């Protein structure tokens, strides 16, 4: 899959935009971000669906901070509140 994405990226050479980073972002990281983003979106919907299905059977299940619960939808929490 990675090879296909990268070949697509190479073909998209027509619209080159300037980079704005003083750090080196790394070619692989940039080329792969659309795929990583798609996995993240898919993961979100997958977890949401699982949570909804489980919710049918366990409507009062308390929210936990484990990997299986959907990500927080609120935009900001303080960095120390998970410790």
């Amino acid at each position, binding site marked *: 899959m*990675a090879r296909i994405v*990268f070949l697509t990226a*190479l073909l998209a050479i027509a619209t080159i935009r300037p980079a704005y980073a*003083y*750090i080196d972002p790394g070619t*692989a990281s*940039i*080329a792969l971000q659309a795929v990583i983003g798609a996995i993240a979106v898919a993961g979100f919907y997958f977890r949401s669906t699982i949570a909804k299905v489980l919710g049918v059977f366990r409507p009062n299940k308390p929210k936990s901070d484990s990997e299986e619960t959907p990500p927080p939808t609120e935009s900001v929490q303080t*960095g*120390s509140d998970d410790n």
Partner: protein
Amino acid sequence: MTIDPGSYRDPSGHVHIVGERVFRTVTPHGQTEYKPVRDSGALEGLIERGLLIAATEVTNTDLPSAGRDDLVLEHPKIPIISYPYEWPFAALKAAALLHLDIQLELLEQSVALSDASAFNIQFIGGKPLFIDYLSFRRYREDEPWLAHRQFCQQFLNPLVLQAKLGVPFHAWFRGQPDGIEIGELASLLKLRHKFSPVLFSHVVLLARMQGRVDESDVAAAQAASSCGLKRSRFRAILEQLRHFIAGLSPAGVSHTTWGRYATDNTYESAEASAKHAFVERFAADALPDLLIDLGCNTGDYSQTALAHGAQRVVGLDGDHGALDGAFARATAEGLDFLPLYQDLANPTPGLGWNARERQGLGERLAAADGVLALAVIHHLAIARNVPLEEVVASIVSMAPKGVIEFVPKDDPTVVTMLALREDVFASYSRETFMAALENRAEIVAHETVSSSGRELFCFSRR
């Protein structure tokens, strides 16, 4: 020049330290990004909630070394500078979450962070604070996340190393201050880790891609830079990482020896009370602004010192379980107590460019005016073979006032230490200790606190 030696990378400006004041210059190049962000008001909420350090615009006359066209900001001084390779696991995790929370919030206001350096975050007690104003720039619709690789190297990978593989990240991160490379971590992951969508995409897939891409290939780099990342996908990545990191905890911490120390040690509780009372009297008398607690463990005595007159405490310990306990205490109790990973026989040296980019520990703690060295000397003098006189000299050199505990050779802890090795410590004695201390300091108070003959000495340096 007053430019901080660690502030050379970003062409948008520099940090200047002038006495007790901290300035940041923003060059005309940097202003094209900073001013629109400032004017949008996006930063004010972060400052109000204590997530971002405050900044006041001052005139160039306050900082003669600033360029004529520079914008000059003044920040409050951070009391103690610490680095990610010294932070307990929970602190690096809190810093990672702060970075993601700030980016998630700013994305709604079309502001992006130009980098993801863990060094852009500092701690006030257990609370992380974002300090770099030059990181803020306008978000360009569908631009890639330029700081992704840096976020992985400086936050995600070190946390994964300790959480999933049980290897503390500190030695590796210290040896490589740009962070843990994606390919290096990927080569260590087990098959079961690769089923995690986060580890698969951000580590395994990325490492494989890096293996195939020639980073010196200009055409490939240009092709990559044309790849966009939709805002919704960028947000999904940030939320995915936030969710994943929030669920990480260090592997194997509960099994470390020192994590149980506070409840399961060789002291009688009456002896602990006597030590607490001694520390109380020292703190109330010396009123230290910055107290170093050597071998702080979970921060029991740090908390006592803070409750009785110490302004802030830096705790140093080499045990990861104890440090996480100490950090949890600092956050739960809201203490101005910063526990840091440190091997006392191998303190953090100057690192990075010219070995001055990141300061050594001694330089950063030079302002300390108090030191606690409770149940420490035998760990250096016997476990690490440092001559006792040097141990005492080193402790006394850290601060003008302090408390040192002398642990006699027939104490059960020392007996255990010597059980499997030859006793080559003929000079480890009360006489050597007293001579070393009295040579350098006046003994202000003294008390025997245990039936095994442990003694506390409060000293004032000559």
